[in-house]
């Protein structure tokens, strides 16, 4: 009876919904944003320097249980694949670097750890889970993103590293 009115309302509703959905989906870019952070020795390390290598950025904190559980496995991966052109960067987000250093003294790692105490790089990479692992290919593009860590995730990391190294 009032079908024309109903259709008009449905069109209006669809328009409203589309506008709402488009505001949820942010713009996405595949180029890994560049940054420069202090390392444990005090030197600044930037992402630019690592172009040509396969880079895994692992965002972690000393207060995060799954992050701590993951670290020994990341160390093994780093030792195994760094001769083949792979670099693992631990981006630590502790507000105080001494908290991270205290934990690393008990559980040492050989891969570079950079300190993102002001969360600038975390914001840049829109980190929305702890830990987060970002895989960047030799050309500097973000290819894979892992949120969180559960036992067994490391086999997926290995598959993706091998795939990126082959390119």
């Amino acid at each position, binding site marked *: 009876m009032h079908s024309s009115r109903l259709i008009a309302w449905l069109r209006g509703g669809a328009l409203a919904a589309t506008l709402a959905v488009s505001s949820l989906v942010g713009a996405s870019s595949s180029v890994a944003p560049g940054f420069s952070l202090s390392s444990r020795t005090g030197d600044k390390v930037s992402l630019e320097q690592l172009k040509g290598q396969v880079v895994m950025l692992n965002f972690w904190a000393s207060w995060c*249980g*799954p992050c701590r559980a993951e670290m020994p496995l990341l160390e093994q991966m780093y030792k195994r694949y760094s001769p083949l052109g792979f670099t693992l960067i631990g981006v630590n987000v502790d507000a105080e670097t001494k908290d991270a250093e205290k934990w690393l003294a008990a559980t040492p790692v050989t891969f570079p750890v950079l300190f993102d105490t002001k969360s600038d790089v975390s914001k840049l990479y829109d980190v*929305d889970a702890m830990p987060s692992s970002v895989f960047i290919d030799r050309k500097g593009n973000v290819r894979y993103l892992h949120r*969180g860590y*559960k*036992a*067994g995730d490391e086999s997926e990391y290995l598959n993706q590293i091998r795939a990126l190294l082959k390119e």
Partner: protein
Amino acid sequence: MTLMTATARKLLAAIALSGAAAALTSTVASAGVLPEDRADVLYHRYEGGGVTIHGPSVLVRKKLAEKYSVSANYYMDMVTSASIDVQVSGASEYKEERDQWSVGFDYLRGKTTYTLGYTDSEEDDYHATTASFGLSQDLFGDLTTVSMGFSRGNDTVRRTISNPLNPGARIIDPTFEMDLDRWSYRIGVSQILTKTLIMTLGLETITDEGYLNNPYRAFRYVDPEDATNFRLATEKYPRTRTSNAVALNARYFLPYRAAVFGGYRFFTDSWGIRANTAEVGYVHPFKNTPWTLEASYRFYQQDHADFYSDLFPRIDFQNFMGRDKELSTMDSQTMHIGATYEFGNAGLSFIKRGTFNVFYDRIQFNYDDFRDARDPGLIAGQEPLYEFGANVYQVFVSIWF
């Protein structure tokens, strides 16, 4: 004074277990991560109002396959009681033991944790079992956690009587066995408000059905032959009770690394009881030392149940009559202090860290309409109001592995 029941020794109320069981199984870690593996051994001791209760509580919790966490708790109360109720009834001090076993199972899937729990508590004349189910879900970037739970309990109430073949010894009365069923529903929301502030809101409704009084406890009524005296009769309770509680809690992180917390709970039930509970506390870790101190203050106040009275005018005054001081107009104030010493891994490779803890609570109970009827020389209904203080000690070791 005369007694309706021949001997009424055990007047400490058989304790409702839904509280203890629910506390151990409904406390779920933030969904997304299972609770940590741990073992705790506690010695607890309560002394107050003529009652001493002490014993151990042991908890072990372990993750399996990174998806499940199982826990088991053994708790024991060794009771020696010459409480005011025991004394007023003319009975002598009694000893008793209660054993309680609890098991819990948590399953983590994504951002949801499912929990199952079961508790069994036994003493000579009371057997209680409770089964519970809960689930907890992280939402909104893990800032909000919604949880809900359901428990179902069943208790069997018995009583001991003097052994007719051997007076002085006690046996279970074979003619007396009553049941009690319990349902509990709870929901909760936990919300992170800032980087340093978290708040929780919880609601719980509990319904009991069945034999809700204590077979040893009596109410007082004015002696028809002597108005200055009283007689005792076994209490008469309603067969149902439904209660509702809502609680708000908050915890705030102070910049120099300490925490302050507070909470409020409002309670009402179908027996006419209204209660308010408020608590504030402070936790202070001492920088660069293994020591942490904590202190808190808790205030509790309640109005009496409809059918409660310290002294009824007649034995048949109303349908339901009780004199359990737990249902009277009363308040309690608790001062709590605790010291924790963190001993790292104590050189043992399988321990991540451990703590040694000593807690002390001083609870003062004040009754506004429950009188101290122990002195037979006083006029019934004009005795002084009862009050007592209790000391509660806890010494425990916790290890995380």
